[in-house]
């Protein structure tokens, strides 16, 4: 017996080690109700211990490499590559101011939404607290899309915390160690997230395929799904808050196993292959975080100050208008209006006197007898002043030769024929602004 083990010790050792590993594998796999084999979502104590040892062995060198990389990168970025930073800073400040104003409006809507959700007994979770972390390592296997971050349970991380970047979702915390954590990326084959298409409102399950691409599975064929449609988190998976960007639809392909289903290939919003910094959502609450509330207050203060400034400008213009001579004085005849500029040196070109006057001669037409008293009065044939639809026709009498002779240039012959340079008349809106009335209804274009 002893000689057998000595003689075949190599193969015996091989078989013993293989057998031990296969037994260990069998312990980790379990059967689901539908007969499929799967791994537990979370590792058992023994497996977790092995992962902890492995990570404890490898993470210090990884952290060292990462620190060296970040140090050299920071040295370059903070001391060398600072060109155009001042201009960028000014541009960013302008962007922040603009976004604050926009945020104020959005947060108002969100507040209203919260109130409505409270009425409907539905609690929407908002990102309340995040922890910034650096990606320090990966699984090293193409079949396993997990990576490690330099924050762990000591930093407040826990299982199933959502991991995001400002661009979009990244994954969830799968395993937590004291100083590090393992993150399962959304493009892993075993991952899953509830998503919704922004415009069509079609819901589906996001997962990764063998190539590490994102795809939405288990949705019925729908021609409304178009390339470029934005995909957001649906909020139904209890991991990712609702409304976070996931990516855009890149392609729609037929499900190879089911005819009536399609797979929607997604181009991820976050750069899953080149992750450096991520945010781990450690807390979601049904109310705004202190930072968001502070931003809201700042936005409202900015919005209030801007409104006050506009009000001040209006008030100043009104005061100036009161102090300056008015352009139109209703108590004065037209030729004595302040707008009338008698200092114009341009000589008025009067038509030459006809040698043989006939009925076509200016002033000889029947009913065109110059009457100085009619200059400031509305023409009896002119329509009512408020009838904007017929206003252009009413301007024609101003060109009557008889009126032209008796009225200085620039002076209106009648209220209906006032020139466009008289903005003080309140009912000259439609035709004078050049904008035709909307819907054919005069006077409604304002």
């Amino acid at each position, binding site marked *: 017996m002893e000689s057998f083990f000595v003689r075949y*010790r*190599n193969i015996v*050792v*091989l078989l013993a*080690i*293989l057998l031990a*590993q*296969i037994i*260990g*594998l*069998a312990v*980790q*796999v379990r059967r689901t109700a539908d007969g*499929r*084999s*799967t*791994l537990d979502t979370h590792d058992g104590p023994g*497996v977790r211990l*092995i*992962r902890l*040892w*492995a*990570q404890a*062995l*490898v993470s210090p*060198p*990884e952290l060292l*490499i990462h620190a060296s990389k970040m140090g050299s990168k920071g040295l370059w970025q903070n001391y060398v590559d600072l060109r155009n930073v001042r201009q960028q800073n000014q541009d960013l400040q302008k962007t922040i101011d603009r976004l604050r104003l926009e945020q104020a409006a959005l947060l108002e809507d969100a507040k209203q939404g919260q109130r409505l959700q409270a009425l409907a007994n539905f609690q929407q979770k908002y990102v309340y607290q995040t922890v910034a972390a650096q*990606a*320090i*390592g*990966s*699984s*090293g*296997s*193409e*079949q*396993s899309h*997990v*990576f*490690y971050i330099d924050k762990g349970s000591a930093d407040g991380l826990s299982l199933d915390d959502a991991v995001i970047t400002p661009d979009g979702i990244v994954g969830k915390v*799968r395993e937590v160690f004291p100083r590090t954590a*393992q993150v*399962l990326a959304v493009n*892993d*084959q*075993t991952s899953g997230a509830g998503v919704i298409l922004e415009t069509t409102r079609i819901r589906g399950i996001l997962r990764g*395929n*063998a*190539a*590490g691409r994102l795809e939405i599975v288990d949705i019925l064929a729908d021609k409304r799904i178009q390339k470029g449609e934005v995909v957001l988190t649906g909020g139904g998976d209890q991991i990712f808050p609702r409304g976070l960007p996931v990516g855009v639809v890149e392609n729609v392909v037929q499900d190879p196993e089911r005819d009536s289903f399609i797979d929607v290939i997604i181009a991820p919003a976050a750069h899953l*292959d*080149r*992750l450096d910094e991520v945010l781990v959502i450690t807390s979601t609450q049904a109310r705004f975080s202190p930072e968001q509330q502070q931003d809201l207050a700042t936005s409202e203060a900015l919005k209030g100050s801007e409104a006050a400034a506009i009000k001040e400008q209006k008030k100043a213009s009104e005061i100036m208008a009161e102090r300056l001579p008015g352009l139109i004085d209703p108590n004065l005849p037209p030729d004595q209006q302040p707008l009338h500029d008698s200092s114009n040196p341009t000589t008025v070109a009067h038509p030459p006197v006809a040698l043989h006057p006939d009925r076509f001669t200016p002033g000889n037409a029947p009913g065109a007898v110059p009457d100085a008293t009619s200059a400031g009065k509305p023409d009896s044939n002119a329509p009512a002043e408020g009838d904007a639809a017929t206003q252009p026709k009413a301007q024609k009498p101003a060109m009557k030769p008889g009126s032209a002779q008796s009225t200085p240039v620039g002076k209106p012959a009648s209220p209906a024929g006032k020139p466009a340079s008289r903005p003080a008349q309140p009912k000259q809106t439609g035709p004078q602004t050049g904008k035709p009335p909307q819907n054919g209804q005069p006077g409604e274009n304002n």
Partner: protein
Amino acid sequence: MPLLGDDRRNQEIRRFPILAYALVPLAALVLQAWLPRVMGRFAWFDLPLVVTVYFALDRRSPIQGTLMGAAMGLFEDAFSNHAIGINGVAKTVAGFLAASIGVRIDVENHTIRLVLNFLLSLLSSGIVVFVSRFLLGLELEWRWYTALFAAIGNSLIAVVLFPLLDRLQIRD
């Protein structure tokens, strides 16, 4: 150059400093975890397998090759989200075969090193798929050309890395 080793070479067992046994596999594991972050989806190599094959070939001990392969594979599994043991089984077999072959052939021949790494890489990938899909019944999608690229990458790395590691040997 003969491909089969002579008797003297067959009896020769290369020795390394203790630190080399510890630091080279550790460096392989760390680089395998770190480089894919830099290279993205183009990280077609398996450094722990290359190191396993190297030590198994040079030590010419199937037991040591088996143990080395098992340890490296288990570490790789521990870094992933897969069951622990899948890569362990694959690299255990690879280490055992490399050491068994190393007894019979000239392990300093570059062609042999290249071909051996290529074949063992393919074998390792095949065992991973076999264990995952058929032994455990897991739904693992697999692309053959990725395994092929990884095998080519391992072979090229081995041609460059093995002479460097040879410098660590303790010469009598």
